[in-house]
């Protein structure tokens, strides 16, 4: 499923973003081709060995193949995020007279200050997701009182890794990313934090509030003064520029969507830390397996890491608007000049339908597998 949904993503560069591909192909073509050549081959060859080769290879070699799959997929993430980091914060490039970007400094692509925080944040978020899935399945087995020995193992592993990874997602990686946004994309930072007006000294952190784009203010705001300045710059009184400091065409075009994505991600992250900390505490006191409300909570939390991941990417991508390559290439200049919007809508609807079908099949099959439990099948 990953393969067949991955191919459209790669092809889209050419089909839907032709102008962007033509202009920046000299740079992002490098990282994407490296992703295909190095990581994708590594991952897919050893995935096959991992799945089919357990009996042939013995435990140690089998573990090695698993490790190589991990290495391949994380290297994939590294190359993809190198591409994205370059779009967020372009480095090591030169622009020719015909508007094409060429690579001037190869190593700059991988020492991009945007890359490491984004990579670690993204990978930690993936660990959060898998830890929550594992904990959720464990809670399900315990609640149903079937396979409960496996359930306890799953829950224990899930809770321990869930807490470690959700803390790491927030601090230091998430914090580090936010500082990068404040430094390199100040307009985006103001928009995602919902700061409409610049304050004299010290910016407040908004917990709840709905952006009102007509009156240019937040409705029903609950905010804590000076915290944002402290979190970002470790100075209580540091001034943070609000959206009034930027031209309209420099700010993201969909500010409410950006604001909500960011706040949903942060809010969910906080809830994850809270639930997992409580669960770990009760695990330590040997009470966790008997407290049903918490088990139910953990079981039903499973979709939320996915939502947090998606809103996180929305934050990154909506925040980069109106640019494809921040500050250099506008999104409207990167599209395919010859593909009409009607054709794009047609293909978009087709993909939506197909992916919904794939999602449904995925849920049915995964649900079936979970229901059957981890007992080895006998043929």
């Amino acid at each position, binding site marked *: *499923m990953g*393969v*067949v*949904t*991955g*191919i*459209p993503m*790669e*092809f889209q*560069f*050419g*089909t*839907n*973003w*032709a*102008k962007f*591909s*033509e202009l*920046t*192909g*000299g740079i992002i*073509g*490098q990282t*994407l*081709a490296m*992703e*295909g*050549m190095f990581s*994708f*081959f590594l991952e*897919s*060859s050893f995935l*096959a060995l991992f799945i089919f080769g357990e009996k042939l290879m013995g435990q140690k070699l089998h573990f090695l193949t698993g490790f190589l799959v991990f290495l391949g997929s994380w290297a994939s993430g590294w190359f993809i995020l190198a591409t994205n980091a370059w779009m967020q914060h372009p480095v090591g490039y030169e622009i020719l007279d015909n508007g094409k970007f060429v690579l001037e400094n190869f190593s700059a692509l991988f020492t991009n200050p945007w890359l490491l925080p984004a990579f670690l944040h993204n990978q930690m978020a993936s660990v959060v997701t898998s830890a929550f899935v594992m904990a959720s399945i464990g809670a399900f087995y315990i609640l149903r009182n079937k396979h409960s020995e496996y359930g306890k193992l799953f829950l224990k592993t899930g809770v321990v890794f869930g807490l470690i990874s959700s803390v790491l997602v927030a601090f230091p990686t998430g914090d580090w990313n936010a500082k990068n946004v404040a430094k390199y994309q100040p307009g985006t930072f103001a928009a995602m934090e919902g700061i409409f007006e610049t304050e004299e000294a010290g910016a407040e952190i908004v917990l709840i509030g709905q952006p009102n784009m007509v009156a240019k203010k937040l409705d029903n705001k609950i905010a804590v003064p000076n915290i944002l300045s402290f979190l970002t710059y470790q100075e209580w009184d540091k001034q943070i520029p609000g959206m009034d400091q930027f031209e309209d065409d420099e700010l993201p075009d969909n500010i409410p969507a950006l604001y909500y994505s960011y706040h949903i991600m942060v809010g969910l992250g906080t809830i994850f830390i809270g639930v997992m900390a409580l669960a770990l505490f009760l695990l330590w006191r040997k009470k966790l397996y008997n407290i049903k409300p918490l088990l139910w909570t953990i079981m039903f939390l499973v979709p939320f890491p996915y939502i947090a991941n998606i809103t996180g990417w929305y934050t990154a991508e909506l925040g980069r608007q109106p640019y494809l390559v921040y500050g250099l290439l506008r999104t409207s200049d990167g599209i*395919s*000049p*010859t*593909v*009409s919007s009607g*054709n794009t809508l047609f*293909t978009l609807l*087709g*993909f939506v339908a*197909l992916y919904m*079908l*794939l999602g449904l*099949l995925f849920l049915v*099959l995964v649900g*079936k597998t979970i229901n059957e439990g981890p007992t080895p099948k006998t043929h």
Partner: protein
Amino acid sequence: MDGYDFGAGIIHLFFAKKEEDKEVITKSAGLFWDSNEVWLVAAGGMLFMAFPTFYASVFSGFYLPLIIVLWLIIFRAIGLEFRGQFKYQMWKDIWDKSFGISSLLLALFFGIALGNIVRGVNLGSVENGVSAYEGHYFFLPLWNSSFSPLTEHPGVIDWFTIIIGLIAVVTLAIHGANWVILKTNSSINTKLKGVIFKLNIVLAALTLFSLYVWQMVNANSLDNFIHKPYLLVFPLIYLTGLVGLFFIKKSKKTVMRLYCQPY
């Protein structure tokens, strides 16, 4: 690269009647299609890196057919991967059809793509001396109302490209049949040998016919061979393959001939 598993899909669609045969054929393709897609991804990435302008121009120009190919690849994957997961015959039938039909259409579409290259694509329609699009960009509709390659702005699908598409289907069916014979011992293998012989005849006839219409569509198409005689090696390989097919029973290199077709 994907040749034989498209072919296996076509054979599966038309000739596999018994449940065991269906299962064996899907398994013979199911183990390998994934690795073939990896090559596809790698090829795409390399093309992007080496020729970004070409990548941008061709992928946006062939927008609709490419997206349809992506959809078909997804349907084929669903068919192959989900078949073994459901135990009721009703679902298996659906996955089988999904695999077979999308394989057939994919072979057809790749042939049509070759046909477009052979026929020539109108890059950037120039009107009154001014290019309607910027430089090298173009956009092909799926078809135009006449389905004719001889009009000024032919679509992706016209009667010429469909002929080339059919050649691809027949070639890949032979290739797939050889693959099935080589890799499995299903009960239809003896029957498939007869099928291959008949398909060979069809292929030879189609090839001759396509050469004739090719001259009609693109009259100076053979000039390249006069200027660069070494290119003749490609049609020679093709001919060797075609003749060889009649003699060699277990040839698996038959897909070579497909690659020779556009030159």
